[in-house]
Each structure stands twice: as structure tokens, then as C-alpha cells.
């Protein structure tokens, strides 16, 4: 801080208005102009900033002991000690139950569900770039999709889809997002639209996921005919598994 400058009451109050965003447009532009051109003024403003921040910091610091005494300590402490003293045996028993249920569920799956589980993994999505292209919303949703937030991706893509109902990329990604979100019947409606576009880049993939969705829904014949239209290797492997 500069001991040689004087801070007037007027200056103090105008700096306060500046910090609080209470300046009129004219006052603000004059203030900012001066801030740019006048180094002494800059220092004065910074000094006031430090003073105000120091007052607030010290005020908070002096209240922290009160905060501390107000912690509702019973509930938190009890919850913690409970976890700490839980017997290992109980945890082990719980783990066994969970594993048993998982096993039961897994071995009770129909063969088709097993196949589905073996083959299905969500499409990795498209590379998202930091450009300011017009497809911002699309790639914004792609980020959600890649993070596994399928719901958010679906809601954003659905909005764009309303204006471009025939876009094969949108139909394809809405389809795979619904599949990843375990809603196969919705996925089928979108994927069927995606394959309508004869020159689509996603055609092969779309047929593959469509086949998987049909498989999950139990429509084996539809699944097979869909998979036959796809050239990807997984499709062929799945098809031969279905035919055996």
C-alpha cells in the first residue's frame, strides 16, 4: 500500500460503487478509462480492494469459533463411529449376499440376454473439438454422452432433432444414447430412421445397434435381418452366435 497518497471519502465511495456494480454507465466508463490510464489511481483502487477484503477476511476469521461451536456434532460423530466399528464379519456377509444376488441374476438371464450383454457396449461417440462451429449444441450433448450422462444428451439432441427430423447422425446417436440408457424400444424408433438414409456413414453401425436392440426386445428374426445388413465384425460374430 502506498502511504503517500490520500484516499478521499469521495474516492472510497465511488470505488465501493464500482465493486458493487452500482455505477451508472457514464460513471463506469469514466472510471474504467481512468483505471487504464492512471497508474496512481490503479494503486489507490487496489489498496481499497485490499482493505475491504482484509476487513471481510478478519471478520469471518473471528466468527469461525462460533461456527465451530454450532456444528451439530451428535449426528455426524455417531454416523462415523458406526462405520468404523462395524464388524468385518458383517461386511463380509453383506458382500456375499450381494454377490449371490448378482450371480442369481446373471445365470437366470436368457441366452439372448447374455448375448446382448456380451456384445453391447455404447458407441464411443464422436470427437468433440473446441471450435465455435454451428453444431455447438450437438457437440455439447456429445460431451454429456461421452461422460455417460445419457439423459442430458438425449434431451439436448431431442431438441435439435425437432428441427432436423431426418438427420441420420442425430437419429443414430439418439438411438445409441437410448440404448445406453436401457430404453430399447425408443432406440429402435430412432435407429430405424437412421437406416433410411441410404448414403449414411453410420449405416453399418446403425444396423448393428438396431439388431442388438431387437435381440434385447426378443425379436430374433428382426435382429438377424438387421444384422445381415451390417458389415461390421461384431455383427457377423453376433449373427453366427445367433445362428448356432
Amino acid at each position, binding site marked *: 500500500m502506498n502511504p503517500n497518497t490520500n484516499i478521499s471519502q469521495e474516492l472510497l465511495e465511488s470505488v465501493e460503487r464500482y465493486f458493487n456494480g452500482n455505477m451508472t454507465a457514464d460513471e463506469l466508463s469514466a472510471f474504467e478509462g481512468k483505471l487504464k490510464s492512471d497508474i496512481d489511481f490503479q494503486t489507490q483502487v487496489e489498496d481499497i480492494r485490499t*482493505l475491504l477484503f482484509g476487513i471481510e*477476511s478478519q471478520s469471518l476469521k473471528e466468527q469461525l469459533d462460533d461456527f465451530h461451536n*454450532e456444528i451439530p456434532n451428535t449426528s455426524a460423530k455417531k454416523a462415523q463411529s458406526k462405520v468404523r466399528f462395524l464388524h468385518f464379519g458383517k461386511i463380509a456377509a453383506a458382500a456375499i449376499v450381494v454377490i449371490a444376488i448378482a450371480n442369481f441374476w446373471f445365470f437366470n438371464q436368457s441366452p439372448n440376454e447374455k448375448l446382448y450383454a456380451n456384445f453391447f457396449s455404447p458407441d464411443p461417440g464422436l470427437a468433440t473439438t473446441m471450435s465455435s462451429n454451428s453444431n455447438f449444441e450437438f457437440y455439447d450433448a456429445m460431451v454429456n454422452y461421452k461422460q455417460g450422462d445419457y439423459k442430458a444428451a438425449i434431451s439436448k439432441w431431442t431438441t435439435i432433432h425437432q428441427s432436423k427430423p431426418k438427420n441420420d447422425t442425430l437419429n443414430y446417436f439418439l438411438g445409441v444414447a437410448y440404448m445406453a440408457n436401457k430404453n430399447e424400444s425408443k432406440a429402435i424408433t430412432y435407429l430405424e430412421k437412421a437406416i433410411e438414409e441410404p448414403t449414411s456413414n453410420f449405416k453399418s453401425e446403425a444396423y448393428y445397434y438396431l439388431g442388438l436392440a431387437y435381440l434385447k426386445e426378443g425379436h430374433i428374426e428382426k435382429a438377424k435381418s438387421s444384422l445381415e445388413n451390417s458389415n461390421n465384425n461384431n455383427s457377423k460374430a453376433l449373427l453366427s452366435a445367433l445362428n448356432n
Partner: protein
Amino acid sequence: MRRVYETDYKLQLIRDIKDNDAVALKSIYAANYFKVEALVLKNNGTKEHAKDIYQEAFLAVWQNIKQDKFTPKNESSVHGYLYTIAKNKWMDFLRSKEYKKTMVSDQINNFNAPELDVDTDTNKLKEQQLTNVMQAFKTLGEPCKSLLRQFYFDKKSMKDIAQHLQLDAASTRNKKYRCMQQLRALALKTNTQ
């Protein structure tokens, strides 16, 4: 819709913290203390250590949010940040000379790794100035202190403060200004020491 709501909520949280909203600050304080206490107790510390280190960390988090050095995405990112800072501070303390003094000397003579100093001179100067102001405010007379605290920390209106002091608005403003001058003079004196 959901997104709008979340953004609103996020802004509200930041606004509450910046406005020193007592309810928001207390709930953040209460939510994380026991995690930090457990960490310190497990690592050679006492409850007093835990409280000190936690309060330091809490103040640092609040300061960083105020200065936009840290912009939390949501409430849990505030919690995570607070815990991490407290943990780092405790680790720093365990490595510090103050702590090592109490340990057997040959245990520690071996590693005196130079600490990485990323602070620039201006940052250090600012840090020092802030410490001076805080120290000055601590020793400021109670009438001035209370006036400045009500205005700048509690964000009370000038009108309310004036009413409370049974003064008119203009003289309260003038009083506040003179308190600021006192504080500044004290801080400058601290500076020369």
C-alpha cells in the same frame, strides 16, 4: 429446463458465499469438519490441530471463491475443495520445521528438500498487505470495528446502521470513512515492522 435450474442454483451458491450468507457458510463449515478431524487424528494430530487447520482451510476456500480463483460447479465441489486444502495444509504442517522440532533430529536431517516457491513477488506483496490489514482490523477499536464489519461483512444498509447508531446517514458515512482511514494507517504501520 433442468439446465437453467442448475445454473441458477450454482450462481445462487456462489452469490451466497460471496455475500457472506451466514446460513450457507455455516452449513459448509459443519458439513466437512468431521472428515478433516478424522484425517488429522489418524495422522498424528490432535483435535486442536484439526480445528486450527480446518479454520485456515475454510478461510482460504472462502477467499479463493471471493476472488474468483476457484469457481465451484456445485456444492459438492466446494466440499471436495475444502477437504483437499485442509489435507494439503496438514501435510505441509507435518513437513514443517515447527513440527520437526518436536521429532528426534536424526529422523529428519536427511531430507530438507527445498520447497517449490511458485509465488511471484507481487503475489507475496499482496499477501503480506492482506495479512497487515487483517492484523490491523483485529486491533482496531471496537466501535470502528463493529461499524466496518456491519457494513462490509454483514452487508447491512447504511440506513440500518445509521438508525442503530442514532445518527443521520451523512455522519454515519463520514464516521465509516474515518474508521477506514484509521484502519489504513494501522495497516501501514504494521507494514514497516
